[in-house]
C-alpha cells in the first residue's frame, strides 16, 4: 500500500490511481488541466521520497533536481510526501557560526558562515538569514559546495536595511545566526557542456553568478562562458582580481565589467550590463542565460533574451526584490 502525505494528512493511493486523482479526490486544491503530463499546470514537489522518473518528463532540469513532478502522471511504488509549489517550505532552521566578515567594496560585505548541520545546496541558490525569529532576508550563495568549506554571501547594505544594516554594523565573527534553506532554481546543471552560458548581473547579483560560474568551470563546462557584471561606477564592482585570474586560467571564460555612469576607463564596457551583453551577442538561440540582481533589469533582460532567441527553459533568473518592510 502506497501512502501520499500532504500537509498533515495521509492518503492511501488507490490501484492505478494517479497522485493527482488521489489528492483532488480528498479535496486538496491542486490545479490541473491536461491530466496527461503535458501542460504542467498541476506541478508539485516531493518533500519526502523520490518521484518516479516518468512523472518528471518535460520539466526544467533545475526543477527535476529539486524533486518537482507532475502528479497527474505519477504512480509511485513507494510512499511520497508532497507539497504544492506555493506552500511555505517547511524547512528546519539551521544554526551557523559567522566565520568572517570582509568588505568587498564600500557597500557589499562578504559573509562566511559555517553551518552546524550539513546543508545540501547548489551554487546560486539562496538561503534566508534571520536577525531574529520574525526578521529574515534572502541572500544568494556565492560558494560552491564541492569547492568551498563554508557558505559565502555577498550582502549589500540597503538604506534602512534592518538585516543588511545589522550584518554590516553589529554582526561579529564567532557569533551564531539562524538560517533556513536553500531555495531557488537559478543554478548550473551539469550536462550539455558545450552550450554557451551568458551570465548577467548587477550589484550583488554577482553573488549567485560567481557561484554558478565556478560551479560550471569546476564541472568542466567546455562551452564559452561570458560574465557581464554591471554597476554605475568603479566602486560598485568587486572580485575583479579573482575574475581576471579565472580568465587567465580558463580560455573559455570571458569577463566584461560594465559601467553605466559617465566615467568609463579603458578595460571597461560602457553601458548597462544587459545592454552590453545583448550588443555583443545579438543572437541568443541555444544559449543558456543566468540573470541576477536588480528586479527591473532581470525582468527586461528576461524578455529581451527570449525575444533574441533564448528558449524559456534555458533562462534562469534571480531577481533581488527588496522587502517592502524595511
Amino acid at each position, binding site marked *: 500500500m502506497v501512502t501520499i502525505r500532504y500537509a498533515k494528512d495521509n492518503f492511501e493511493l488507490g490501484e492505478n490511481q494517479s497522485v493527482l486523482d488521489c489528492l483532488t479526490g480528498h479535496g486538496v486544491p491542486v490545479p*490541473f*488541466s*491536461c*491530466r*496527461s*503530463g*503535458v*501542460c*504542467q*499546470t498541476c506541478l508539485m514537489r516531493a518533500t519526502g521520497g523520490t518521484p518516479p522518473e516518468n512523472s518528471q518528463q*518535460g520539466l526544467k532540469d533545475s526543477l527535476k533536481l529539486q524533486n518537482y513532478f507532475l502528479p497527474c502522471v505519477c504512480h509511485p511504488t513507494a510512499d511520497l510526501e508532497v507539497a504544492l509549489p506555493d506552500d511555505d517550505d517547511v524547512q528546519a532552521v539551521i544554526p551557523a557560526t559567522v566565520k568572517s566578515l570582509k568588505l568587498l567594496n564600500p557597500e557589499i560585505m562578504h559573509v562566511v558562515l559555517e553551518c552546524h548541520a550539513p546543508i545540501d545546496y547548489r551554487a546560486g541558490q539562496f538561503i534566508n538569514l534571520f536577525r531574529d525569529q520574525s526578521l529574515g532576508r534572502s541572500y544568494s550563495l556565492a560558494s560552491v559546495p564541492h569547492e568551498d568549506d563554508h557558505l559565502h554571501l555577498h550582502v549589500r547594505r540597503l538604506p534602512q536595511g534592518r538585516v543588511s544594516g545589522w550584518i554590516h554594523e553589529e554582526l561579529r565573527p564567532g557569533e551564531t545566526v539562524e538560517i533556513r534553506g536553500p531555495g531557488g532554481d537559478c543554478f548550473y546543471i551539469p550536462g550539455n557542456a558545450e552550450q554557451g552560458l551568458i551570465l548577467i548581473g548587477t550589484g550583488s547579483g554577482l553573488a549567485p553568478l560567481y557561484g554558478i560560474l565556478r560551479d560550471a568551470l569546476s564541472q568542466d563546462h567546455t562551452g564559452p562562458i561570458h560574465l557581464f557584471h554591471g554597476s554605475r561606477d568603479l566602486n560598485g564592482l568587486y572580485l575583479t582580481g579573482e575574475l581576471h585570474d579565472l580568465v587567465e586560467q580558463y580560455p573559455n571564460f570571458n569577463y566584461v565589467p560594465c559601467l553605466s555612469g559617465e566615467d568609463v576607463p579603458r578595460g571597461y564596457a560602457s553601458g548597462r550590463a544587459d545592454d552590453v551583453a545583448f550588443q555583443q551577442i545579438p543572437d541568443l538561440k541555444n544559449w543558456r542565460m543566468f540573470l541576477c540582481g536588480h528586479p527591473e533589469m532581470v525582468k527586461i533582460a*528576461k*524578455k529581451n533574451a*527570449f*525575444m533574441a532567441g533564448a*528558449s*524559456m527553459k534555458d533562462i534562469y533568473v534571480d531577481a533581488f526584490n527588496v522587502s517592502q518592510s524595511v
Partner: protein
Amino acid sequence: MSDQQSLFEKLGGEAAVNAAVDIFYRKVLSDDRISSFFEGVDMDKQAAKQKAFLTMAFGGPHNYSGLDMRLGHAHLVERGLNDSHVDAVIEDLAATLRELNVGEDLIAQVAAIAESTRNDVLGR
C-alpha cells in the same frame, strides 16, 4: 493506417507542443495587435498557459471547459479584447505551424479547434 492517427499524433504529440511553444509565444509578444495584453505578466506562468492552450489546439489531452475560458479571459474582455485579437492569435498560431513545416490541412484543423473557443474567450 495514418487516418486512424489522431490530430495530436499526426502533429508529433508532446514534442511538437514543446517545439511550438517558444515560437508561438515569441510571435504573440512581438505582435503589436495583441502584445499589450501580455505586458507585466509572469513569463514562466504565461508560457505554461500557452503550452496548455497549444496542447488543446493540437487536439491533445486537456481539461479546458468553456467556463475556464470565460473566467480566464474576462479581465481582458474588460480591457477591450475583441474578435480582431482572437484573429491575431489564430494567425500567429498558423504562422508558428508553417515555420515548423506543418501541412496546410493540419493547420486548418488546429485553427478550427482554436476557433471553437472564440465565443467563450470573448464571453458571449
